[in-house]
């Protein structure tokens, strides 16, 4: 089991030295709301100069990769390119494209069909950019229009009972996929309050339809498959840095990465320690190898 050891001093160099690359979660790690975590832009710059790859893997399904690229820049992170960013919105669109378009077109009866998306414009844009067509809201669940081949549940602050009912209508067809961008139950707001996450909406759709969703985001490993496909990373030389034990740290464990918990986001050190003390095997998988108060604490581990 991972030891949840504070990373500092000589330990820092021992861990960072051999690493070829680092995967970073974004919210609560690089920034909180509209503020970059102090020292985070400098860390990324130093990593770049040390020749280490930096990639970003986020469960946040609100933003397109293009929007995220602009966000990085606006918050003071230099030189982050869209191709380094793996958001659950982008990866969900890729997943659907592979499942529906991957075998040279649909299931034989007229093309890949349409996707019913419960989510905002960022998510819808990624689905369109993947070459898929969207079903509109308020349309009847069956009829002459091209069949709906998947319901995609993302962060949807315009979620309504009517949309839930519409989604269930499509899901009566057992061929229609049910996919969720991420399992997050809630997200922190800057004042300490919480806002419901995709996970809560997915639970409603699953309960109504009697189906289990395929979840693209962390802790499931699909987003890592996307990363490997594009960049060919070696898990044994890659570190995962995140703020949420149940998604980021478990994701790292599932992908064979060493994990670093940063305390600038959702999870508290006490929670990691409680998992460590637990008898359950599942709980042990949520324990990070290391932790830092902030990713700025990693800077001393890098060469000048």
């Amino acid at each position, binding site marked *: 089991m991972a030891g949840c050891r504070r990373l500092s001093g000589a330990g820092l160099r021992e861990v960072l030295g051999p690493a070829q690359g680092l995967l970073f979660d974004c919210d609560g790690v690089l920034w909180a709301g509209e503020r970059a975590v102090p020292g985070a832009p400098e860390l990324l710059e130093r990593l770049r100069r040390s020749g280490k790859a930096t990639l970003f893997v986020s469960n946040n399904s609100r933003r397109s990769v293009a929007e995220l690229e602009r966000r990085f820049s606006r918050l003071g992170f230099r030189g982050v390119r869209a191709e380094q960013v793996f958001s659950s919105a982008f990866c969900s669109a890729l997943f659907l494209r592979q499942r529906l378009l991957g075998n040279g077109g649909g299931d034989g009866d007229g093309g890949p069909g349409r996707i019913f998306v419960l989510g905002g414009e960022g998510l819808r844009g990624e689905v369109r950019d993947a070459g898929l067509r969207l079903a509109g809201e308020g349309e009847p669940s069956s009829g002459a229009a091209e069949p709906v081949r998947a319901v995609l549940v993302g962060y949807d*602050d315009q*979620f309504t009972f009517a949309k*839930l009912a519409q989604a269930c209508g499509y899901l009566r067809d057992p061929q229609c996929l049910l996919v969720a961008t991420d399992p997050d139950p809630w997200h922190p707001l800057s004042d300490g309050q919480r806002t419901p996450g995709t996970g*809560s909406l997915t639970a409603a759709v699953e309960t*109504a339809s*009697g189906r289990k969703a395929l979840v693209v985001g962390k802790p499931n490993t699909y987003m890592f498959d996307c990363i490997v496909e594009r960049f060919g990373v070696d898990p044994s030389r890659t570190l995962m840095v995140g703020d949420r034990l149940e998604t980021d740290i478990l994701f790292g464990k599932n992908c064979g990465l060493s994990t670093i918990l940063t305390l600038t986001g959702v999870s508290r050190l006490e929670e990691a320690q409680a998992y460590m003390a637990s008898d359950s095997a599942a709980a042990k998988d949520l324990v990070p190898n290391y932790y830092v108060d902030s990713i700025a604490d990693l800077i001393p581990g890098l060469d000048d």
Partner: protein
Amino acid sequence: MAAAAAGGRRCRRLEGEAARAALGAAEALLFDCDGVLWRGEAAVAGAAAALGRLAAAGKRLCYVTNNSSRTRGAYTEKLRRLGFPPAEPRHVFGSAYCAARYLRQALPPGAAAYVLGSAALGAELEAAGVPHLGPGPAALPGPAPADWAQAPLDPAVRAVLVGFDEHFSYAKLCLALRYLQRGGAACLLVGTNRDHRLPLEGGAAIPGTGCLVKAVETAAEREAFIVGKPNRYMFDCVVSEFNIDPARTIMVGDRLDTDILMGNNCGLTTLLTLTGVTTLEEVKGHQESDCPARQSLVPDYYVDSIADLLPALGD
């Protein structure tokens, strides 16, 4: 094997001498409504006559339904309209009424409930004297979630109540989460029922209250107290009103995982009717399983329709 060994329930057809004996011995019968007495606006043929004979024989008749979108008054009106023996609101135990009773007893004086639910649920809370806010579309203080998270919270709210809510939205879910987070364990989370689907005529269905309860539970990372079947709270309400004896009470329903399970758990005699959502094959499947949880879904008796009770009720 397991059924016989555990003295498990046998799901025998209720007819002939067994029917006369069971109905004769019963002092009270509890009826689920949808799929038992009626389907939509159409009464099950012979159901009203059967209940008429039971009432004439002096049996106490009560109606126990998970549907939270109607008041007790609306149910008594429907019973009257479809020709059933006269009933008063006190004979009807809907999950809206029972949720209001629960909150009246569980909330400190002056505390209010934030309600995700229908006007009927609001009306039952009103009738029970429980202050509440929420039924209907969300009153949004601005277009974005950032605005919603700044809307002032009512200081009196100490419970979130989730019922059937066709106005359910992310904004309302957000507000529910804020109340639950503010109050912690001191803010109750109550759901009227967990039914995941409401069947409509023709095989379609709309999402049930269970979906909305699950959304709130997932966001809040806690479990709701559920008023409706199969939990026993509604039965406790019946007992407190009428002092019935479980050993002399028959629960009549069409769903195994709500009506029959509650009846079995409360020590009632259970009677499944096949005019609703359950088939005999499903029951056989549970009967033949080794799983104790599935065994507890098996009723004592079944009929094709409650009209089949008429011969046993003749004079």
